């Protein structure tokens, strides 16, 4: 008989993993299309949380409406980010410069710079401390299921994440925009020659990935009641680790790795101590890079 306490930790770990998965998908989509890492992605997560917070303190709408507006804010933030930090380095549209090393490194730095600017701007406006989240809108009502007690947030995070993942899968496999995203990530020049508007595809990829990240931000913010300008850093890194573990371009790989990561973290918190659980993600990353450079779910790539 397993102690119900561990089951409870398992549930917490899974919902943590689900939020990592939502963020990791943004990384994966953008990496697939542009071959670059978007360091400002964790700031999209923070923007999502703050947008939701402002909305809740101003109007106190039901959660579903908050989520929809946060989706829109996320899409808009992704659009702006792409225009400011990525577009200026895509002056030429041949394949060599679309996936070149110079483009990769300069966008890495420009997205890093954007992330500093966004975080510090939020600090200037809201202050760096934890924000007051109205108690009524927190999603932590306890629900007893047999011997274990979970909170409503676990169920909400799980169902929202499941719906979004399903929606993403449908979008990618059964719509024109999904088709063009897959085409560009497969071969940008080929996609361009067959009449796909690569620029618009890249923007929609950013919007899509940022929507996921922003929703994860507000869900976690309401789950823990902790919304502050630097909140995106840790989950951002962990989502990144999940993406690397999953093999960089594989969405199912990223989701499964994110769940593994979430569960291992909550188990580490239980068995070792909460301060050292941050080490789990970093060790996973180093071990993956050394032993499985192709990722656990092997998307093929040239050199790491």
């Amino acid at each position, binding site marked *: 008989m397993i102690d119900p306490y561990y089951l409870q930790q398992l549930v917490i770990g899974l919902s943590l993993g689900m939020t990592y998965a939502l963020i990791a998908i943004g990384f994966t989509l953008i990496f697939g299309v542009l071959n670059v*890492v978007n360091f400002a992605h964790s700031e999209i997560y923070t923007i999502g949380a703050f947008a939701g917070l402002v909305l809740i303190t101003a109007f106190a709408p039901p959660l579903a409406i908050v989520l929809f507006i946060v989706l829109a804010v996320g899409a808009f933030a992704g659009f702006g980010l792409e225009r400011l*930090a990525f577009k*200026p380095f895509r002056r030429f549209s041949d394949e060599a410069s679309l996936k070149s*090393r110079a483009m*990769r*490194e*300069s966008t*890495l*730095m*420009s997205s*890093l*710079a*954007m*992330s*500093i*600017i966004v*975080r*510090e*701007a939020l*600090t*200037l406006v809201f202050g760096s401390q934890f924000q007051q989240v109205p108690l009524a809108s927190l999603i932590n009502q306890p629900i007893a299921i047999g011997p274990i007690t979970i909170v409503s947030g676990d169920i909400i995070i799980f169902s929202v994440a499941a719906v979004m993942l399903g929606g993403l899968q449908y979008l990618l496999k059964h719509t024109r925009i999904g088709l063009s995203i897959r085409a560009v990530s497969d071969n940008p020049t080929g996609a361009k020659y067959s009449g796909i508007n690569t620029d618009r595809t890249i923007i929609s990829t950013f919007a899509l990935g940022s929507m996921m990240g922003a929703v994860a931000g507000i869900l976690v913010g309401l789950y823990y009641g902790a919304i502050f300008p630097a909140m995106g*850093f840790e989950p951002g*890194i962990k989502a*990144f*680790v999940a993406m*690397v573990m999953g093999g960089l371009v594989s969405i199912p790989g990223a989701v499964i790795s994110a769940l593994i990561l979430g569960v291992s973290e909550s188990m580490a918190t239980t068995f070792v101590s909460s*301060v*050292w659980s*941050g*080490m789990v*993600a*970093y*060790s996973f*990353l*180093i071990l993956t*890079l*050394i032993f499985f*450079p192709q990722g656990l779910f092997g998307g093929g790539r040239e*050199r*790491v």
Partner: protein
Amino acid sequence: MSELSRRNLTWLCLLAIVFVVAPAFLAYFDQGYFYQLSTLALIFALLAASLHLVTGVSGLLHLGQAAFYGVGAYVAALLSINYEVPFSVGLPLAGLGAAAVAVLVALPTMRLVSIYFAVATLAIGQMIYLVLLNWVGLTEGPNGLVLSSGIEFFGYDVGARIGTYFVVAVIVLFSLWVIHRLTHSYYGNALRALREDDQCADAMGIDTVRLKVGIFAVSAFFAGIAGALWAYTTGYISPGDFNFANSILILAMVVVGGLGSLPGAVIGALLLILLPEALRGVGDFRNIMVGLTMFLVIVFVPKGLMGEVSALAFFRSRFASAWQGGGGGKVGWR
């Protein structure tokens, strides 16, 4: 004027500014704040120069330099507190400690390239930061460490603030000179080959992994020296001084100054330390300034204020004979 003396003149001007003009300014105003600011600027100039070795010259994007800065600071502080090791011994030991940690973590990760390397260094930096923060038995955790002794040489205490400034300035300038000589040698050329195309360098017979581990350790050594200087001059260190934001600050200095240029890295450091302080009256815009400067430089001056290429062109036009001289098929700097 012959070009050798012109070159000497540049060096003389630099030395005069650091050792005469700045101390005169400091002594004239005689405020603790200015002393702190000037030593901070010198320490960050050294840090930027140390990152310049890895990121600028060797082209490896390193996102965890602050961690080695922290290792140096903690080694110096712990030696001073627990074993009463004097400054003249603690300083090199701090550098060596940081270099040893760097070799240890570099051995498994050095085979990675580009973004994977960057992320691995980020993870390593965060791991070291977490150890500093959470190993309370050794590092006192978030409370930080207070040093009992200041800077002293063989029993002679240079306790006065102006003395501290001079000691830091001499050490930093000497380190900068060593870094300058290191990058303008065959070793430096091998590093540049690594940056331009590591596979090609490998094919030409350069042992890229050994070279990378080596330069990573050298860079960590200088970062450790900077950390020890920070620990000795402030007398108090805590893990917050060595977090990810500081790694990014150092990287921003190198990027703003221009990747691959040592004067650029130093100018970037001075700019990003002194400019926000000068604007302090307007409001606390320090960190947002760092981000904005970095962004604007990347978009509008991608080579930085003194990028490698422009710096090379500059030196070639100024010291053309030094470049061509020697003959006999020798390529590059003497």
